Each structure stands twice: as structure tokens, then as C-alpha cells.
């Protein structure tokens, strides 16, 4: 694997530093914690603070969604590892404008534990912390065990809806409810065609035999639910759509937002090839696509693969989705 690399131990610090340098018009580093990125205007007095955080290697997630109208402060972990409880705590402090903080994060063992510990620390400071945990990945547990499912690219919609609701001036409970509603309305699936390599490890985590693919792969290369013959783009797109919509079970006529994200090394053109088929399949199931996003929104280092996320909309979510945002990965460039 040929890559741009200095010392593998420094990659996260360098990424964050480069990120903050590039987007200094919109974000800054937290005082005293180089693993927390804060929106330029945060904390906004009287506004509910939005916090997220997660492992590195998913760029532009998580850090790229920090900015006005979206996330106020983001805690950053090692590659594929939850941020420390301390970083979540510092992010909470940085986001707190006196109206409480809502932490919107993904359902992983480390994040659950670190957010819980951080919330306890914040409670001691007298900051009210509410949480919503994303569990949109349908392949990671059966429907009866939704609480076990991982959070994947649906988190972006959760941040967008929660962030916009907070920007409108809603109180903490209402922001939590909007974000919870958003993630409840999301279903995602991922497919992997080639693995990724943690630079410090130097070889791929796992292998995908040539001619096969992992349907249901996780955002860290967690193996899929099935290894099958590599299909055509159309076959893969249809299968992903089927998995998501069979689980979602939306009434005909429902308006949806669709997000197709590459996993890091998939050419953008191929994402559009997938979307072309997915969109027709989604419409064939009687749904109406209100808005689509196709690009590298939530990646896994240089994995070859893609994810599909479908969020059901109602009038409120449509309004919040359209609200202006200004973060590096979503909104004005």
C-alpha cells in the first residue's frame, strides 16, 4: 500500500492540524485539547450545544461536520477508536452555551462508554447532557435488536437535523427528539469490495477474495453478513436498496432523503452509477426522493466500497434538512 504517511503514530494529530488550518474560517482547535475541534462561533449563548465524536479514518466524518448549523464541537479518536472520555467532556464544555448539550454519536462499545463517562463529568460541572445514539446500520443486528445496531452514515442526517433544530432555538429535549427521530427514520447498508489498512498495522485487516464482496460490511471493515460473488453495479445497487427498504418498510408515497457515500477509494463516477440504479429501485417501491447526496461523506480509510442511507422525511425534517449550514463537509465550500 502506497500512501502519504509520516510516522503512523502522528497521523491523527497531523490530520486534525491540517484540517483546522484549512478551515480556520469555520473551525478552531479547543483550548488545551488538540483532539477536539470547535465551530468558530461556538458556544452560542442560549443555544443547545451539539457534540459528536468518533474514531479517525472516516474523513470527512466526524470532524468535517463541525460548523454553524451542524455540530458545535467534535471529539476525535485514534484511527477507528473512540475519543477519550476527556475529549468528549472537553467537547461538551466547548459546545455549552448554557442551554444544555446533546451528544449525537454512533453505537460502538468505546463511544458508549466514553460518552457515558463524559456525561457524568459534565453533570458534575452542572451541564445538562442528553444523548442520542445512532443505530442505522441494518446489517449489524436483526430488527428485534435495533439497539445493538452500529451507527454509520445515517449519523450525518442525525447531525444535520439535530444541528438545524438547535440553530432554530429549540430546547435540549426537542433537539434530542428531533435527532432521535432522524436516526429512527434512517436505515443504512454498506458493501465492501476491497479492505483498508491501518497504517500502523501495515497490511489489511481482512481480505476480500477477488471476485467476491462483503455485503453488510461495517465502517471499520467489520466483516459483512455475507460474502457473495461480486455482482454488477446494478446487482449490487439493487441488493443494497432491497436490504435497506425491506428493513425500513415505509408506506408508499413517503418522501425520502438518500445518501450514497464512497468508503474512500471508490471513484466518484461509480457512486453515480450505483445511485442511478438505486434511485430507480427506490422509486419503484413507491417512494419519492426529495433530496440526494452522492460523494465521500463517511469513509473508511481507503476501503473500496459504498454505503446507502435512506431517511424518511416529514415536513419538519424537510425544513431542517434545507436549513443553511456552513461546515467543511456539508454546505458551502
Amino acid at each position, binding site marked *: 500500500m502506497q500512501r502519504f504517511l509520516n510516522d503512523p503514530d502522528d497521523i491523527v494529530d497531523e490530520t486534525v492540524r491540517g484540517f483546522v488550518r484549512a478551515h480556520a474560517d469555520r473551525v478552531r482547535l479547543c483550548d488545551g485539547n488538540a483532539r477536539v475541534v470547535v465551530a468558530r462561533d461556538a458556544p452560542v449563548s442560549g443555544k443547545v450545544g451539539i457534540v459528536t465524536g468518533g474514531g479517525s479514518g472516516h474523513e470527512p466524518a466526524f470532524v468535517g461536520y463541525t460548523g454553524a448549523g451542524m455540530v458545535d464541537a467534535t471529539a476525535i*479518536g485514534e484511527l477507528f*477508536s473512540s475519543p*477519550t472520555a476527556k475529549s468528549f467532556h472537553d467537547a461538551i464544555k466547548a459546545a455549552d452555551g448554557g442551554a444544555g448539550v446533546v451528544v449525537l454519536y454512533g453505537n460502538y462499545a*468505546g463511544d458508549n462508554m466514553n460518552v457515558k463517562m463524559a456525561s457524568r463529568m459534565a453533570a458534575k460541572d452542572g451541564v445538562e447532557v442528553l444523548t442520542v445514539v445512532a443505530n442505522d446500520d441494518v446489517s449489524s443486528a436483526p430488527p428485534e435488536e435495533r439497539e445493538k445496531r452500529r451507527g454509520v452514515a445515517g449519523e450525518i442526517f442525525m447531525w444535520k437535523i439535530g444541528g438545524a433544530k438547535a440553530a432554530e432555538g429549540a430546547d435540549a429535549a426537542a433537539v434530542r427528539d428531533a435527532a432521535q427521530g432522524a436516526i429512527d427514520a434512517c436505515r443504512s447498508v454498506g458493501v465492501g469490495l476491497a479492505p483498508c489498512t491501518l497504517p500502523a*498495522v501495515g497490511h489489511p485487516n481482512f481480505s476480500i477474495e477477488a471476485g467476491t464482496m462483503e455485503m453488510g460490511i461495517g465502517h*471499520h471493515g467489520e*466483516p459483512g453478513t455475507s460474502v457473495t460473488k461480486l455482482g454488477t453495479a446494478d446487482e449490487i445497487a439493487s441488493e443494497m436498496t432491497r436490504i435497506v427498504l425491506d428493513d425500513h418498510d415505509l408506506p408508499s408515497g413517503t418522501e425520502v432523503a438518500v445518501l450514497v457515500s464512497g468508503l474512500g477509494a471508490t471513484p466518484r463516477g461509480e457512486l453515480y452509477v450505483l445511485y442511478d440504479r438505486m434511485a430507480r429501485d427506490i422509486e419503484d417501491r413507491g417512494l419519492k426522493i426529495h433530496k440526494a447526496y452522492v460523494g465521500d461523506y463517511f469513509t473508511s480509510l481507503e476501503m473500496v466500497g459504498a454505503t446507502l442511507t435512506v431517511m424518511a422525511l416529514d415536513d419538519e425534517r424537510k425544513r431542517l434538512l434545507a436549513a443553511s449550514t456552513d461546515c467543511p463537509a456539508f454546505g458551502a465550500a
Partner: protein
Amino acid sequence: MMASFPNAGSGGIVRDIAAVIVENRAYLSEIDGKIGDGDHGVNMAKGFGRAAERIAPDASLSDALSTLSDVLMSEIGGSMGPLYGMFFAEMSETVAQDTHIDGARFAAMLRAGLEGIEAVGAAKVGDKTMIDALVPAVEAAEANRSDITAQLREVASAAEAGRDSTTDMVAKLGRAARLGERSRGVPDAGATSCALILRNLCDGAARRLEQG
């Protein structure tokens, strides 16, 4: 041979544990990669390696454990930050006032460490986690309170047997859970690092016993 080893000056045991974790960096990542995300060895080695540098040459066991806990919790994060962070924090606190650690205190220290983990995680025996190495080790420690030499031997082998038991388990928790049958055949990464830690803790303590 003594029935206890001193707390003071025993911090070297923790440095030795760290060295072993750093040596096993690649292996721990590899088994985590098979059914998880491959970062276990990387993060463990980073945290333990960093902590070892900060443990004073003459540190006590309790201070060394506390340093290790701090680094894991405040600099490493991941799952290991809170889990091992709490583990070592509780162990450290338990023996902080002890000048010597005998079989009863050793058992109490491990039990507190286990409870620390249980306070943040929710794994049970059989879920294919570090708990599968730790619970039998704590039980062995409690069953052998009166003979610390035997205790140290039994704790280490119980941890290793517990680790081995995870190979054939289907994961019920964490990243590997949805894999079902595909998670069988690989030992759990956390159980493996936990067995390494306990083996080297016991061996280190036994050496301190001999030194009297």
C-alpha cells in the same frame, strides 16, 4: 519465599507488562482485525508504551497502575481507555494504602478491577470479551487467597484458559456480534491482551516474592 510482596518498588512489574503488550502489538491487531477493526494492538501498545515511559524507576505498584490508567483514559480512548482504565484505576486504589500485598489483597485488587470494568461495560462470561479471561482469573485468585504462590500460578493459567475458551465462542457483544458463526475460530483480542496482562502481572509478582 514470602507470603506477600511489597507495593513500593514494584512498579517495574507494570513496565514489564507494557513491554509484553508492545511486543504483541501486531498479533493483537491481527486477531482484532479478523472479527473486529484491527486496532486493538495499535492502541494498547500506544497506551502501555507511553505509560511505561512515565513510570518512575522506583514507582510503587499502585502508582504505576495509576499512571497506566490515566494514560489509557485520557489519551487512548477507544474501548480500552474506559475498560482497562477503570480496571487499573480500581486495582491501584485498592492497594494504594497497602505496604505489602498478600494473597487476600491480590484477590481483592483483581476483584475491584473486574468491578471497575463492569461499571462501564456490560459484558458477561460467554460474550467473547476480556471478561472471559478475567472472571475465571478473579475466581482463581479468590479460591487461592491463602497461598499466594499457588494463587499467582492459578490466576495466570485461569486467564489463559479463559482466553482459549473464547476461540470457540460466537461473539455476542461489540463489533463481532453480528458475525455469528463467522466469529468462531479466533480468540477474542481483549481476552488475549487480558491474559497477557495477568500472566505478566503474576510472573512479576512471583519474582518480587522471591526477592522477598
